[in-house]
């Protein structure tokens, strides 16, 4: 913060450095635009039309200046006691400048790609980007005209981002909501179209024409569709923010106990009914996507107990998944070394047993380790497990790299679970049980012991928690849930191969719970759906999955380390109450020398 000595400017934030900030942000944006171009994302995404004739790749490229302009146009942070400057042309200007800086950076890159062949270094900087074919970066135009259009669009969109900051809060939120809805519905086209079609087929409600109205034949959102969605979202958000409604939660809390219980049951019933219809409505492809996400969700719920509740950073979690899968395969496949070919349900108790034993085997040696050391050692265990399954030494049992095939299907009485839709129900029951167990354990003696251990191991022990039992039980519960995931995975795929169980699985599950929200079941569910489900749905993203995970992790660590949906503690508002009460205490006290705040902790 620069302290200008000018008293005249005291009403405002000292020395607005908006210019340099806008340029800096613009350069960052330019770097991002260049990066997504050079790593092939823009080109890979240009196959899918998103809005009218705008492809996903172009939309990605154009979202950069909008975002950067929005960020650059943000009002300066205000020091306490200073009046904030009213948003005005400066914000727009900052957006324009940032957009220009991004545009120039990208333009330079375009010129570079047009004049030199840099493919020796950057494989994905193909001629298609500027010279031949679709000329993605110059929008199909000649170099000069394309550059002009690019710069113009970048400046305009940067300015538009800045304009957003000038709008009154309600309108800004409404515009952002509209943008979000348009982007979301455009991206989710395959899912939305399928759901609308499915509703028509299953429930005989005429929803299919809506699909044709919203989406073009190409799959992009049609122009009338865009207009309708944007207008609807804008108006709804505006309406919603007009009345000062109390948050839903406080209104619920004011209801009498009885009606609250009835409401809860009603909501639960409605949700269950919807979920019961879901697989039929969404069809086999989307059911399969949900099934993959569901298996990861089982694992994530398990790891959430180990990492989120008990605070034990386990990077070898995939080992338990593998144990569950191999146990199922060994016991249900007639081809396996055991060769008994049991039905799935008979194998389940053994899956629990094997997972629990492997949880103990990993947990016992790491009892005295914490944090980084624990992470490294468990990482090692995960790899050891995979190498054992793949090894020639154990090949007679586990089949080495060939794995085990003909894993039995699940059967419910006479019904064989073969279709993804049917599998969804089975998986759903497991997930429901796991989620229930998580809630139940969280609110119990053992759950409190885990959390105490997470917060301070030595003190937890001093307050009566036996750390050995607490740690081992966390490992065992986590292992069993992952084991269920593995068992379901094995029967779903119908075979197990060691290469399915590499460290990437552990990392993915960990990312899910970090991004979703540690120790929070809704967070874990959302995290799995977004981070595992979406890439399955939008195959273009598959190649860039880990890039996106990485970017998301960095973003979350900087901006929201507690995750998207943190475990529910209404800390902040209550904290204010606490401060208020302390002030009252101090004010109410006679001259008593030092108070809490200004007394140093001795020693």
């Amino acid at each position, binding site marked *: 913060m620069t302290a200008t000595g000018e008293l005249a400017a005291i009403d405002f934030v000292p020395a607005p450095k908006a210019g340099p900030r806008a340029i800096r942000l613009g350069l960052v944006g330019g770097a991002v635009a260049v990066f997504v171009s050079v790593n092939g994302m823009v080109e890979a995404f240009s196959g899918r039309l998103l809005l009218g004739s705008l492809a996903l790749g172009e939309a990605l490229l154009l979202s950069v200046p909008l975002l950067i302009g929005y960020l650059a146009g943000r009002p300066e942070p205000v020091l306490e006691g200073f009046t904030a400057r009213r948003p005005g042309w400066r914000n727009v200007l900052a957006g324009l400048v940032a957009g220009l800086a991004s545009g120039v950076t990208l333009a330079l890159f375009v010129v570079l790609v047009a004049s030199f062949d840099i493919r020796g270094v950057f494989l994905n900087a193909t001629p298609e980007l500027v010279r031949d074919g679709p000329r993605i970066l110059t929008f199909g135009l000649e170099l000069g005209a394309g550059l002009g259009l690019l710069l113009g669009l970048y400046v305009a969109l940067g300015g538009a981002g800045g304009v957003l900051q000038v709008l009154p809060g309600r309108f800004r939120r409404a515009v952002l909501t509209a943008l979000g809805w348009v982007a979301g519905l455009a991206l989710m086209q395959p899912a939305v179209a399928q759901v609308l079609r499915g509703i028509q087929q299953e429930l005989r409600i005429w929803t299919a024409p809506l699909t044709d109205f919203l989406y073009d034949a190409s799959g992009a959102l049609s122009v009338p569709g865009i207009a309708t969605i944007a207008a609807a979202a804008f108006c709804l958000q505006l309406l919603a923010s007009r009345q000062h409604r109390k948050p839903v939660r406080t209104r619920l809390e004011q209801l009498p106990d009885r009606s609250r219980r009835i409401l809860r049951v009603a909501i639960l019933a409605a949700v269950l009914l919807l979920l019961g219809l879901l697989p039929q409505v969404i069809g086999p492809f989307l059911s399969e996507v949900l099934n993959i996400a569901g298996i990861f969700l089982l694992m994530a719920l398990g790891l959430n107990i180990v990492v989120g509740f008990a605070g034990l950073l386990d990077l070898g979690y995939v080992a338990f998944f593998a144990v569950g899968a191999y146990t199922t395969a060994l016991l249900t496949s007639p081809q396996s070394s055991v060769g008994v070919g049991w039905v799935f349900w008979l194998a389940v108790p053994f899956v629990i047993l094997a997972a629990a034993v492997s949880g103990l085997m990993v947990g016992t040696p790491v009892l005295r380790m914490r944090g980084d050391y624990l992470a490294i050692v468990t990482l090692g265990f995960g790899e050891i497990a995979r190498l054992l399954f793949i090894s020639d030494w154990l090949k007679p049992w586990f089949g080495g790299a060939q794995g085990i095939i003909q894993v039995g299907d699940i059967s419910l009485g006479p019904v064989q679970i073969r279709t993804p839709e049917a599998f969804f129900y089975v998986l759903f029951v497991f997930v429901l049980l796991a989620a*229930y*167990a998580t809630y*139940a*354990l969280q609110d*119990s*003696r*053992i*759950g*409190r*012991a885990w*959390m*105490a251990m997470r*917060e*301070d191991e*030595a*003190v*937890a*022990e*001093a*307050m*009566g*928690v*036996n*750390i050995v039992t607490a740690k081992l*039980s966390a490992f065992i*519960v986590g292992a069993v849930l992952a084991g269920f995931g593995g068992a379901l995975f094995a029967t779903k795929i119908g075979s197990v191969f060691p290469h399915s169980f590499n460290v990437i699985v552990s990392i993915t599950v960990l990312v899910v719970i970090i991004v979703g929200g540690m120790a929070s079941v809704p967070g874990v569910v959302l995290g799995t759906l977004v981070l595992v489900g979406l890439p399955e749905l939008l195959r273009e993203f598959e190649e860039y999955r880990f890039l996106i995970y990485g970017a998301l992790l960095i973003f979350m660590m900087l901006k929201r380390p507690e995750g998207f949906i943190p475990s529910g*503690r*209404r*800390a902040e508002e*209550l*904290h204010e*109450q*606490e401060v208020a009460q*302390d002030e009252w205490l101090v004010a109410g*006290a*006679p001259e*008593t*020398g*030092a*108070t*809490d*705040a200004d*007394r140093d*902790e*001795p*020693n």
Partner: protein
Amino acid sequence: MALFEIRGLTKDFGGVRAVDGLDLDIDEGEIVSVIGPNGAGKTTLFNLVTGMVTADQGAVNFQGRAIAGLRPSQILALGIARTFQNVRLFPEMTVRENVMVARHCRTRSGMLKAVLRPPSFRREEKETRQRAERALEFFGSRLVGWRFDTPARSLSYANRRRLEIARALASDPKLLLLDEPTAGMNPRETEELIELIRRMRDDLGVTIALIEHDMRLVKGVSERVVVLDYGQLIAQGRYDEVASNDRVIEAYLGRKATTA
């Protein structure tokens, strides 16, 4: 026989002999203050007694039972609870949960019960909750009501100290070790705490040993004062006896000149 006996307790940290051949008895129902200059080994004594640090030599008997070598959780279960000089709560857990953790050793239900929730589980849970709330109510209105559900980290410093004491009390201790309970409190709050410490002994029948630097508290509350210096017991007795003891004055003044 005393409730609590220490014989020849010794602990070395590298070259530093933090506790040096200490003998100490505490009778049932006593309030004992442990004082001494900084670094005298007071906190180390508490750490040794509660099993958080293992002794090099010596014996600790509690109700006639040797407790050296037990896990801290076992020692708590036998009835020795403590607070920490640098308050150590479970910051992200709520005030009530912090205290409920201390009931861990007095309750039994395991994971299966937690998931199946039979009546016995619910009864135990309810009782744990009530016990925790009662321990918090010991401090009047300061930690009750909406504070039950605030995370411990959002408490003021003095309230954190109170919460730590409530947490220790909730484990139904016979001997309570308080490490500088009034550090960070203003004189009015200190007065209040003196009153509470007496009530813990009189109403709850807890024997109390406390480390304190605030001589008003030491004078106001303790029936016996134990003075440590360089890990050795250099004097004990009533406050005025100890305060006029030459070795004590020397220990304090000799050190004060360099540290103050």
